[in-house]
């Protein structure tokens, strides 16, 4: 696989060979985390800017560690709210940053399409760290890496994604990435949280949790945001967790080797009962460590690419 892209904007753009290339690179880089001196000189002299318009400690920290372990200079630029709140437009902020000659800009924004807009206007590479409900490619890549690690392969597996699919960029990126790797994907949730014509994404749609997870090799639980009670999506957290929350009792009818995954942070007691989050089924912490490895791989590949 040879990586030729200037940007990583979404899983929809990647083909299976590129996905495998990133996973293999990430796997090779994972060993650095086990060293005493967690440093390689690979991106020495390169500047990575984290442009996070949505507050996110974990993803930002993950990118920061990834950059620093590769010896890059990492700058964090937190901007809260939309352009309107800040007064400075997104493009103006980006142009200002570009004037400082970064090699890669990692951006998270609440508006779908914001990273694509930046990628059109910036000469340096752009990594989408999450845009609105659109895509979060490094999350999907680390999810795939974790599944491959635990199951030994990807093709032919059954993955069920449970929760608020409509508002989830993680769900979309996972769906695109998993389907390209030959995984059968089922999404499950109340009809109000399943987006229009969802089955056209190539997934099975279920409105019954037990039926959706019965044969799953992997169950991906999504975080439910409290705002969903406004807007009439769900009546209450209590009902949501009773019907859609994962408990040990519900897991008894699943495969004994099922993996439980979650992009974090977990709403304990809502989508996952605490005992499940802490059980042997859960690979949530592996997802976090693989996240650093995947982000190292992505920064490595993008920082060297001259772009298409």
């Amino acid at each position, binding site marked *: 696989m040879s990586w030729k892209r200037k940007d990583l904007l979404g899983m929809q753009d990647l083909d299976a060979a590129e996905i495998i290339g990133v996973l293999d690179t990430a796997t090779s880089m994972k060993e650095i985390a086990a060293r005493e001196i967690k440093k390689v000189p690979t991106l020495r002299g390169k500047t990575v800017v984290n442009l996070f318009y949505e507050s996110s400690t974990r993803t930002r920290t993950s990118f920061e560690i990834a950059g620093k372990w590769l010896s890059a200079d990492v700058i964090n630029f937190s901007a809260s709210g939309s352009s309107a709140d800040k007064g400075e437009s997104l493009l103006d902020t980006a142009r200002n940053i570009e004037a400082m000659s970064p090699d890669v800009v990692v951006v998270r924004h609440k508006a*779908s*399409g914001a990273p694509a807009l930046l990628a059109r206007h910036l000469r340096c590479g752009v990594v989408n760290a999450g845009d*609105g409900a659109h895509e979060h490619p490094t999350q999907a890549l680390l999810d795939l890496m974790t599944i491959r690690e635990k199951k030994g392969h990807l093709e032919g597996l059954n993955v069920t994604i449970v929760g608020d699919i409509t508002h989830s960029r993680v769900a979309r990126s996972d769906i695109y990435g998993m389907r390209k790797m030959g995984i059968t994907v089922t999404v499950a949730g109340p009809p109000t949280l399943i987006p*229009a014509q969802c089955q056209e994404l190539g997934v099975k749609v279920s409105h019954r949790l037990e039926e959706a997870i019965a044969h799953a090799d992997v169950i991906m639980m999504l975080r439910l945001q409290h705002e969903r009670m406004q*807007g009439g999506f769900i009546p209450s957290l209590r009902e949501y967790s009773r019907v859609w929350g994962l408990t040990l009792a519900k897991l008894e009818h699943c495969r004994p080797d099922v993996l439980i995954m979650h992009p974090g942070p977990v709403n304990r007691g809502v989508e996952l009962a605490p005992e499940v989050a802490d059980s042997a089924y859960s690979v949530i912490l592996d997802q976090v460590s693989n996240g650093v490895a995947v982000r190292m791989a992505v920064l490595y590949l993008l920082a060297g690419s001259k772009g298409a």
Partner: protein
Amino acid sequence: MNLLIKGGRVVDPAGGTDAVQDVWIADGRIHKIGRGLKPPAGAEAVDATGKVVCPGFIDMHVHLREPGFEYKETIASGTRAAAAGGFTAVACMANTFPVNDNRAVTDYILARAKVEGVVRVYPIGAVTRNLEGKQLAELAEQAEAGCVAFSDDGKCIMNAELYRRAMEYALPFGLPVISHAEDCELAHRGAMHEGFVSTELGLDGQPAAAEDVMVARDIILAELTGAHLHIAHISTAGAVRLVRDAKARGVRVTAEVTPHHLLLTDEVVRSYDSSCKMAPPLRGKRDVEACLEALVDGTIDCVATDHAPHAVSEKEGEFAEAANGIVGLETAVPLLLDRLVRPGVLDLPTFVARLSVGPARLLNLPGGSLAPGAAADITILDLERTWTVDPATFRSRGRSTPFAGFTGAGAPWMTLVGGVKVAS
């Protein structure tokens, strides 16, 4: 002052003409139409051989933005854009600043148009005060001042009781009430059409139902009150069906459609380019097909651009935050000639009718026909002229169009208002 337009193919649906004829204009009015006309010596001549001579086109849905938003457009720039686009008259919406909900603003617009405008300007007055949807505006005074219709366009009047009263109150003035049909609650989150594309893009969408629900309601209110209801920028198959059924029942409802709702679907929004963002949004394939069919069979009475200019900075940036609206005066006629008339989807006389006699009759305006005695508002088309859409060359201050870079053949060649050339 005599002007002879020689040898063009005169297409006048109102008069039932489609033949090569000469048009003799005297003192700003059409004097005679026939073959081999000989006006007195000294008459100016325009050789229209190979061109199509039509009644001046009328765009009944334009946002001229003056007063208050002159940075987006002015009556001067907007009417120049209209003339360049082949239009001899525009009806301008009331969402200015201040809102055109009283005769002072109507008078201002008409006065400015007299000085600065190069085509005829017909103001549309607001239905409710300040477009707030709470209290009636002074419709009688607005009618007296010269408004040709009433509309809160840009916003939907959510209160059915108030809208009913407005339709009733407006009856004696004989002016249509124009609905921007969009249920705010159903639509409010949506930056684009709700469908597979919005699911893939992760953008909140507004379902076609948001428009259909209000079209249905407004038709029922029109039936109740006997008012002439006109549906602005119709865009869904459901709304088209409702209008068709209502017309069959004898309800006084008419509808207009924009060129972009005839030519583009929500697929173009994949670029996240906000030049594809407007209200109502670009819809799905079946909606476009229904609108085309309805335009051909007359369920939709006319084409209107909903020309809505904005400053570049208002359209730049995140899709969800960008302002709604694109410009259309300078691209409507070329695009429809190339994409609908040329391939035979819409025949030329019907096309001309939808842009001339259609809006004229609907709004009870002079114009829309080339009868002797009528003002010489004339649009001459060149069906062979090739073009490329280049926003940098627009006369409008607005630059946002999803058609940038499109090419085709067929464009306005000359526009005359009252016998005076305003564009060529």
